[in-house]
């Protein structure tokens, strides 16, 4: 059975490639479990000999991580809500019609997708300062981030709406539904999975966002976990086990969601990004 062996070798190579590639993630978890002296051992221990689970408790208790995560959660929720509520309808219209105006709108959305946040934050900060929005820092961050995530969300959702047969909607209209009724009760439920995956991706982006939060939120009590991480990063840091415990606490929910929904996320991405 030549092809059987062939497959096994390919499988093995894939395993090795994935292991090497994802080593940084493994190293994060291993470092977080080492003692303060073991992290500087030469040669480095690949497996922690004496796992220090207590580090997680200490970091949780001493670094304000609950507050940071709560702020990340609030910002991500706000961003996802604004993006999904405004974006889903736009994506639907962009998928349903084909004319010059729709082309122009689509072109605009595609172009807005590319603006780098670290460049947009200068005019946004000055503008927000002028109209007083900086007094509500987290709201300001949500508004700015949502403008960045919405084009991406619209592109992904548009691809989903394009797969829904127009006839289903027309049948609903014949049955006496209004346009609004057909949209909310027929089209949206059919597009639910695609919208949820896109919303999850937006939530992840909002949860990990850094540039806007770091620039617009000055008050430490309102800052998200990404800024909490940078507070660790003083020159000549030594407590890498604590930093990695913080990082692991922060990203494990994201990685868990990714592992559970890997297939849906990959499908959602590939259907949208190139279409």
């Amino acid at each position, binding site marked *: 059975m030549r092809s059987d062996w062939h497959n096994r070798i390919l499988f093995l190579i894939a395993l090795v490639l994935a292991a090497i590639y*994802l080593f*940084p993630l493994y190293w994060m978890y291993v470092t977080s479990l080492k003692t303060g002296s073991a992290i500087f051992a030469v040669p480095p221990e690949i497996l922690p000999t004496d796992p220090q689970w207590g580090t997680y408790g200490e970091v949780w208790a001493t670094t304000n991580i609950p507050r940071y995560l709560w702020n990340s959660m609030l910002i991500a929720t706000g961003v996802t809500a604004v993006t999904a509520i405004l974006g889903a*309808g736009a994506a639907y219209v962009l998928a349903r019609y084909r004319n010059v105006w729709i082309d122009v709108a689509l072109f605009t959305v595609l172009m807005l997708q590319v603006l780098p946040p670290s460049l947009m934050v200068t005019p946004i900060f000055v503008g927000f300062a002028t109209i007083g929005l900086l007094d509500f820092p987290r709201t300001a961050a949500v508004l700015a981030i949502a403008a960045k995530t919405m084009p991406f969300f619209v592109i992904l959702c548009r691809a989903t709406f394009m797969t829904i047969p127009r006839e289903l909607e027309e049948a609903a209209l014949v049955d006496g539904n209004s*346009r609004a009724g057909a949209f909310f009760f027929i089209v949206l439920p059919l597009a639910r999975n695609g919208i949820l995956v896109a919303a999850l991706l937006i939530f992840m982006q909002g949860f990990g966002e850094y540039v806007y939060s770091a620039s617009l939120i000055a008050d430490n009590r309102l800052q998200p976990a990404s800024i909490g991480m940078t507070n660790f990063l003083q020159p000549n840091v030594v407590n890498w086990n604590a930093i990695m415990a913080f990082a692991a606490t922060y*990203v494990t929910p994201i990685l868990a969601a990714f592992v559970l929904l890997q297939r849906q996320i990959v499908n959602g991405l590939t259907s949208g990004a190139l279409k």
Partner: protein
Amino acid sequence: MTLFKSFRDGIGFDTLLIGFALLYLFAFAGLPLIYNVIISFQQVDVFSLGTLLHPSAGWDNYLAIFRDPLANMVFWNTVIFTVGSVAFQFTIGFAFALFFHQKFPGATWFRGLFLAAWVMPGLVVGVLWNWLLSGDFGVINHVLLTTGLIAEPIFWRSDIDVALYSVILANIWYGMPFNMILLSVGLAAIPDDLYEAAELDGATAWQKFWTITLPMMRATIGAVLALGTIFTLQQFDLFAAITSGGPAGSSTVAQYWSWQLSFREFDFGRGAVISVMMIIVVLAVSLVYVRSTRAETRL
């Protein structure tokens, strides 16, 4: 009541749906774009920040940037960072996509697994690489030293000649999976019978790659290269977490410099100058992207 009826059951409904989103984007992306150009001609610092009208600066901000001793280095850093990142993300991503295109059990699942890197927050990726690249205790230096590839530890983050490349390294790792996934989609779209016909004609694997795979992938490759460039020009978090643009500005790229001028030196006028110039570059690249996606799928 006809207006209300239109909103519920006519063209007004569609206008409403897309109108809110476009209005939002105009307010929080369109207006800042215009405002950006305006403040690049103004003097905006901590004193004039909250006021409605900032003092005019003419071309002073632009002249200050062009005369800045950092400008030349930042320009070349940006070029090296972008070209280096995109070239390696793309070639490694292409190689991986070709590898996983062979149909063996678990191929799709393994390929998807790589995206775990891509879903991570950029700042956390930066902090991980900061630790991996640590000079004295970093695991990467340890591997390079024990395998004899280097004789002395490399001080990745603090060596003026290397700092930029340590960020490039992290960025290649971060962006490669996305390149791979998009290229996989392009590969999957090539009809199998093309390869079968070539095999009947006795073509080698190498010939098939150059005469079938590459030409058929042209639109995808264009889109992926453009997207890679766009994402690389957006990269900020890795700089903040690994080198902070240092030492001595040796790893500062334009998008980071613009932010530093605004939020570290509080000179928003000069920050806006770089922002305006970079946005023009980014928009030019995205024209390529929009065109190549159009060619492929006819939007």
